[in-house]
């Protein structure tokens, strides 16, 4: 049984290490293929620190400047993290910088590990949380940096590599589809987005979709309450 907080944290973070290094590598290569300089992937990994958001923002950086869409999309794509934080309210009890760092780096995987990690008695629980968050954060940045450096060093331009983002969202969508009890959300998301793309066009269809989805939810929710 490991005794120190760092040993407990490192052991718990190993699965995320493989995941983040590989996906981060793919993300770095992906951005290199979109013609970005080598420092973009690590910069975005370190500041935004959210895989799906970074992939989407990477494509948005190649289009017209559209700050409102960027804010809305990031907020909505990251919205699930709101609920991770709610689950961690009574667990993240530290103070100061360490506490802020725990919150800043609460990704899907870090949430999954920190929420379930077994901390032996005598080991500082908050320290373990902070260290797991730190290790995961480093894995993701190192992955992104290696991908972009690898791409730059060997001029790795692979036609079709951009499909990794499509595959990622297909996989996440399928996982979500399996999890939900009613498929109203996924199906309406699909239909509304396609309609908005056709009607509103490429620049604003995401915003239009988000507004319509919230309206749809408000109506469905209202009808449910009245019953």
């Amino acid at each position, binding site marked *: 049984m490991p005794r120190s907080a760092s040993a407990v944290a490192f052991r718990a973070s190993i699965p995320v290490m493989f995941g983040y290094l590989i996906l981060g590598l793919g993300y770095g290569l992906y951005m290199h293929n979109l013609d970005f300089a080598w420092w973009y992937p690590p910069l975005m990994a370190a500041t935004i620190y959210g895989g799906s958001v970074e992939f989407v923002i990477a494509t948005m950086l190649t289009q017209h400047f559209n700050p409102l869409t960027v804010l809305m999309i990031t907020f909505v794509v990251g919205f699930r993290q709101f609920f991770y934080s709610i689950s961690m309210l009574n667990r993240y009890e530290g103070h100061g910088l360490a506490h802020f760092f725990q919150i800043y780096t609460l990704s899907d995987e870090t949430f999954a590990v920190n929420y379930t990690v077994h901390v032996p008695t005598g080991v500082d629980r908050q320290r373990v949380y902070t260290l797991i968050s730190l290790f995961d954060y480093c894995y993701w940045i190192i992955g992104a940096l290696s991908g972009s450096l690898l791409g730059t060093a060997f001029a790795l331009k692979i036609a*079709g590599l951009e499909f990794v983002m499509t595959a990622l969202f297909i996989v996440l969508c399928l996982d979500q589809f399996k999890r939900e009890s009613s498929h109203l959300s996924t199906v309406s998301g699909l239909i509304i987005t396609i309609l908005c793309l056709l009607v509103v066009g490429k620049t604003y269809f995401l915003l239009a979709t988000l507004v319509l989805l919230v309206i749809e939810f408000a109506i469905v929710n209202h009808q449910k309450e009245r019953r």
Partner: protein
Amino acid sequence: MTLVQRLITIFLAAIANLLTRILPFWLFKREGQTPPRFIQELGEFLPGAIMAMLVVYCFKDVNWLGANHGLPEILAGLATVIIHLKWRQTFISLIAGTGIYILLLHLI
């Protein structure tokens, strides 16, 4: 986009992403406080729709009237779905799906 516009975009995304994580600590930190039902249920409703939206987003630049009519995208997408339903290993699905797409681009 200029360099400054790009940096602003990254900064805004970082702020918005941080907000989703830090808001609960600002709003509900006191013991026993919970978010309103509407927010909780919206949180259960949205993820499926958002993921579907992002899948459509990935297909937005496909040229359906072009030389291959988006066939590589459709076939590789279907292959990703089938592979993921069969093995449910995220990384296998990602690598296989992307690999098939790269192959199809050369073949079709």
